[in-house]
């Protein structure tokens, strides 16, 4: 359960290029529900994700995760409660390490790292099970360096790593945007499986309206730092969303 | 494939042995000696020390084969060279410059070693003392007759009191000389103003700063200052400052006067010690280390004219005039 209250954020404060992205912004996400956020470029959806994760600092406001205020925590401290998959498949993994080593690292998320051996033989069977669930044959490539995997394989692995320790909140930042349609489909299906199985609260940004509607329970459309639509996904049609998009576009052109 | 491989390997082995053959000596027909020369770097002074040594031995009609190696300023390389000479069991190692001498000492306790172009062999712990070297190493030091050189200033102009010395902080031999100068200064009525630099690029600025406070300049034997002598001389002469060099190459570079050692002669002097060891069978421990027996006086005509000095001054009598 994530609550964002009275959030203010501007870029280039004080200069002539100042942009006010969020003015007294409020939003909350119910536990166990997956929410898709769509909107034109510059509407603030990525910024919102970055403000929640701590990559960007807020000017003022409050962010509460399951009742705990996390806005004062630095990015790495918040990361313990969050899972995040980026658009770039290489950002969520360590390319020069093997699949096994990556999983072993992700397995220790939020724990203390000491001078003990990282890869423990006892953990391998459970890792193999996890990889099998992806149906990509990655369980046979435990000792392959991640840099040799395809984008889709890396992204699937990132997804696994982000959700392995049951985060309180999962942030999906256009995580299939860099993948071809087939791989994108595979990853989205896997995402859906994982979310349903573990009931993870999810916020997903997508440019693909179809995917947004299909894989979420709640859909939000943003524009210029404001929410212009907030409905359960089943109550919204693709056409309706497209219409709003086009209207906004016309507005922009004629403005 | 295998046949080709065999041929290739044979070819390689042949070529390698041919080339090594080029470096090693041919079968000697009479009693001849092998001297390994371990020179630290390419540098006029060090080259002269080598040439003097070689020429003197040739003149003495001794059959010597010289194996000359230059470490290009790299200490580990000078160590490798010394170790190679040691295991090749050369008859004598001639080490030119302090690091080469120290490396050679480290490499062997049996083979006799002669050093040259070392400012202070005692501080470098090459010898226990000049009279009793103790051990297998002795040689010649390029320590300059500094007192006589410093006296030159007052002889040219009694009003000179502040002497500037520029030196490379990385060269231990320079440290030694600066301290020596400071020790001698008092009794000569002089004050030493020192300025250390760690990089040749710092010299122009350091010199500008120094020139303001001095009326005389003493150039110690310092490799970095020697490389920069042109600019040093230029600035000094433009400022009208009397300069004395510890050795002749400074004067060729533009400084006023020097009555110092010749590295060529030093090399020849060292060759005499070599003859003592190789022919007369003396041990290095029996031969005290020496400093230069002769000095050579030179002055720069152009600089003398520029500074408006009198060539009839006793300092320039008997000195050879060199041009820029």
């Amino acid at each position, binding site marked *: 359960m994530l609550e964002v209250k009275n959030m203010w954020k501007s870029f280039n404060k004080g200069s002539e290029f100042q942009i006010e992205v969020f003015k007294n912004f409020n939003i909350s996400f119910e536990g166990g529900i997956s929410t898709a956020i769509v909107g034109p470029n510059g509407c603030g959806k990525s910024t919102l994700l970055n403000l929640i994760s701590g990559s960007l600092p807020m000017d003022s406001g409050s962010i509460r995760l399951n009742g705990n205020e996390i806005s004062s925590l630095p*990015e*790495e*401290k918040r*990361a*313990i409660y969050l*899972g*995040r998959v*980026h658009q770039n498949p290489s*950002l*969520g993994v*360590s390319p*020069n*390490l093997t699949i096994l080593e990556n999983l*072993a*690292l992700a397995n*220790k998320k939020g724990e203390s*790292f*000491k*001078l*003990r*051996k*990282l*890869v423990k033989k006892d953990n391998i069977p459970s890792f193999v099970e996890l990889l099998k669930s992806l149906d990509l044959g990655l369980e046979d490539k435990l000792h392959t*360096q991640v840099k040799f995997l395809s984008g889709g394989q890396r992204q699937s692995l990132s997804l696994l790593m*982000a959700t392995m320790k049951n985060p309180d909140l999962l942030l999906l930042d256009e995580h299939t945007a860099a993948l071809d349609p087939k791989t994108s489909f595979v990853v989205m299906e896997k995402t859906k499986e994982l979310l349903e199985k573990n009931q993870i609260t999810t916020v997903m940004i997508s440019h693909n309206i179809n995917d947004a509607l299909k894989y979420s329970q709640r859909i939000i459309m943003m524009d210029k730092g404001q929410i212009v639509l907030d409905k359960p996904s089943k109550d919204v049609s693709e056409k309706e969303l497209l219409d709003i998009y086009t209207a906004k576009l016309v507005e922009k052109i004629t403005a | 494939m295998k046949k080709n491989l065999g041929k*290739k*390997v044979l070819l*390689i082995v042949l*070529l*390698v042995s041919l*080339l*090594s053959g080029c*470096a*090693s000596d041919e079968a000697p027909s009479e009693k001849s000696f092998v001297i390994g020369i371990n*020179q630290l770097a*390419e540098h006029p002074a060090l080259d002269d020390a080598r040439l003097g040594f070689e020429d003197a031995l040739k003149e003495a009609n001794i059959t010597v084969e010289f194996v000359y190696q*230059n*470490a*290009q300023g*790299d*200490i*580990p*390389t000078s160590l*490798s*060279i010394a*170790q*190679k000479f040691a295991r090749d069991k050369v008859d004598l190692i001639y080490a030119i410059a*302090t*690091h080469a001498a*120290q490396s050679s*000492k*480290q490499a062997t306790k049996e083979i006799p070693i002669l050093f040259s172009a070392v400012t202070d062999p005692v501080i*470098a*712990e090459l010898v226990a003392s000049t009279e009793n070297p103790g051990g297998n190493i002795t040689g010649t030091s390029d320590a300059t007759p500094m007192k006589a050189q410093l006296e030159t200033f007052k002889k040219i102009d009694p009003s000179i009191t502040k002497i500037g010395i520029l030196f490379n*902080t*990385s*060269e*231990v031999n320079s*440290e030694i000389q600066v301290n020596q100068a400071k020790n001698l200064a008092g009794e000569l009525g002089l004050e030493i103003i020192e300025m250390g630099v*760690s990089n040749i690029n710092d010299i122009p600025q350091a010199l500008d700063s120094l020139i303001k406070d001095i009326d005389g300049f003493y150039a110690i034997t310092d490799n970095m200052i020697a490389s920069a002598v042109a600019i040093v001389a230029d600035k000094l002469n433009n400022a009208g400052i009397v300069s004395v060099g510890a050795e002749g190459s400074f004067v060729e570079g533009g400084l006023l006067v020097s009555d110092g050692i010749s590295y060529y002669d030093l090399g020849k002097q060292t060759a005499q010690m070599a003859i003592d060891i190789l022919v007369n069978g003396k041990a290095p421990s029996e031969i005290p280390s020496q400093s230069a027996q002769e000095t050579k006086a030179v002055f720069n005509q152009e600089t003398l004219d520029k500074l408006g000095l009198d060539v009839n001054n006793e300092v320039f009598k008997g000195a050879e005039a060199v041009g820029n």
Partner: protein
Amino acid sequence: MGTLILTSLEQGLIFSVLAMGVIMTYKILDMADLSVEGTFPLGAFVFAKFVIGGLSPLLATGLAFIFGSMAGLITALLFVKLKIRPLLSGILTMTMLYSFNLRLNGKANIPLFKYTSIYGEIQAIIILAFIIITIKLLIDAFLKTEVGYLLIATGDNESLVKSLGKNTNSYKILGLMLSNGLVAMSGALMAQYQGFVDITMGSSIIVIALASIIIGDTVRRNSNKIKLTTRAILGAVSYRLIGGFAIDLGLSPTDLKAVSAIIVIVFISYNNFSKPFLTTVKKKGGKSDARSKKYVEEF
């Protein structure tokens, strides 16, 4: 030939500690750390100070490691806390160390002939082999620990480390400290080997380190089965072996420097253009044959 190999091996082993140190920053953390030009002589000067002060060579060498890691800490703090770029931070530390090294004993050159070394009276290679193997095993084990992996991940992908809940700064500091500790130790080992310490010991040390690493990289380039430490040792030893060959062949002194440059160029080109030259020749005639062939070709 035996002479040459032994000497080159000994120097190669000493420099492999240097290479193993530089691997921490250059390969793992992906940063160029120039402090090593100051930390290598630092190790030597620290060793001299303590051994002259009466400590055992073993202890003095250990202290060299500690002082070296302190220097690494300075570079790290300049970089992490003051946000000075890594390259510049390294240069600043190296510059400060120059004066520090001179002040430590008050002299630029310190003979150590009177003092015992860690090698004692035994042939140095035995002690060196033991030391290097110990260091290698320790580093290998460390890189398999949780902390070790985080260090690797920090150089590989900082966001991953953050997503695991860890601050990358701590690991950069750790990497720089370990790296410079090892480099200083290498300096101490060299000081004992050559019998004296000199302020010029650090110049061109980065070339030796990088050349060793580059050469080490050529061995079965694409295999990730060969550990970084193994590559460092192989590279450092090969580099000295090739240089030793040059001396033994009686190459003209002026050619020595050009040859070193050629070696590095040849190996970098080999790395850049995939030709399984070295591997196939390795199967046929052995490493030294391969090297001499290249040598002769150079001529």
